[in-house]
């Protein structure tokens, strides 16, 4: 997420600049969606979470502490919104749906990413994508958040610590545990997993 120059943007948002809010949404919707997607593992939840993030920012921008880093604040809201969403879903068992690695809906969505290449490679890529998503689900929510912020959003350990409100040591431990769990999960033979996620 490119949040450079966001101090100025935060100022404009806090002043209630309507154009700034729309600009902010347009420029940040994709990185926020992608963080939400990796946290939740599916499109519908990712959209729901990403919109929830903007609603929260819209409502609470007046309370943003301008001494803090705006990008950390946005990431924190996103990670918390995703974790809240996953917890709510866990509390509503009827909402669970088993997602298999050969799930047609996920496969169709993934096909958009890999289309236009040879079928064997497409199939392989789809399988790998599903396997990675299942591996991410095997990691607890907070470990997953730390891993995604480090690996896909390139935050350094200090920024992750700020974003998640934890110590650098805790970030290192989350990351180490996450990578070990991912290794274990990726090493398993293909077997369907449920959407139910691990938790702290």
């Amino acid at each position: 997420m490119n949040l450079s120059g966001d101090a100025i943007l935060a100022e404009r948002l806090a002043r209630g600049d309507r154009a700034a809010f729309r600009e902010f949404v347009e420029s940040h919707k994709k990185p926020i969606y992608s963080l939400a997607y990796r946290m939740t593992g599916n499109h519908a939840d990712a959209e729901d979470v990403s919109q929830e993030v903007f609603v929260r920012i819209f409502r609470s921008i007046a309370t943003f502490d301008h001494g803090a880093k705006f990008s950390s604040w946005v990431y924190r809201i996103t990670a918390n919104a995703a974790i809240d969403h996953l917890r709510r879903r866990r509390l509503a068992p009827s909402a669970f749906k088993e997602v298999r690695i050969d799930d047609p809906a996920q496969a169709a969505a993934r096909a958009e990413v890999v289309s236009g290449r040879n079928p064997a490679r497409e199939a392989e890529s789809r399988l790998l994508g599903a396997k990675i998503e299942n591996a991410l689900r095997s990691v607890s929510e907070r470990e997953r958040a730390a891993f995604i912020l480090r690996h896909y959003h390139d935050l350094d350990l200090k920024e992750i610590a700020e974003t998640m409100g934890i110590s650098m040591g805790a970030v290192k431990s989350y990351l180490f545990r996450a990578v070990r769990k991912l290794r274990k999960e990726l090493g398993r033979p293909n077997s369907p997993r449920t959407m139910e996620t691990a938790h702290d």
Partner: protein
Amino acid sequence: MIRCRPFKKRFVEALYGKLAAEDRKSLEDHMTSCPKCASEFESLSRTLKIMDRHDIPDPGPAFWDGYWDRLERRLEREAPARKPGKAFLSFAPKWAWTAASAVILLAAGAAIGRFFLSRPSSIIPTASRGSASPVSYASHDALIDGASRYLDRSKVLLVAMVNRDAADDPAALDLVRQKRVSDRLVKEAAVLKRSPAWNEGPEDRRLARLISDLEVILLQIANLEAESDPAAVDIIKFGVQSQGLIFQINLGQLRLEKAAGSGSRGAGPAFPKNKYAI
């Protein structure tokens, strides 16, 4: 092995190439003599390479094009509605009771304010009302422009009020100025409400209601007795926050902007964007 533990602690930083040169060297030296650590490090590194290959399925241009509209609808749908339930009352600490009392006082103020400041039956003025003060907003476009400026200025004032921390810095807010601006805005609200250009549509009704709600809180600011009265300011701040007034203003502004964008206001000028500082 116990001697491996301090080195394993450095794995994460080493995997991402963030280890200081000296630490990196000592880790490499250790791995040369410890095949188990070397093997683990290698397998973790391979895991990260696999994770690099995770692409997010693109939901497509139609999804992104409609994103803002869906978000805007959600913002409207989820306008804050405070409903403190039984649980809140049962477990509320002392400060919450104080805050609740403040809300009751504000509600009473609102009722009194509405009774004296606005006509309860309709926002559309009758011909006989025109004598009290000049009606400046004869056309609907002029009225909406005026309302937009009123919302902008009210928000600047309320945001300054909400962000003020009287406990840390009693001089953080120029209360005399805030009172003066509030007084002007209260008068402006009265002029806006008397405009003959209001229509009976839901958008106008919502806007008029928001102007009246703001008028009440602005009247309280204008009538603050002492020049620096932290307790009274805190009650007003709580009122602004509990009623979600800044959020309501944001919504009002978005609706006005949308109306301007869709051309429903005719060929009039676009709404000014925060150029009216208080």
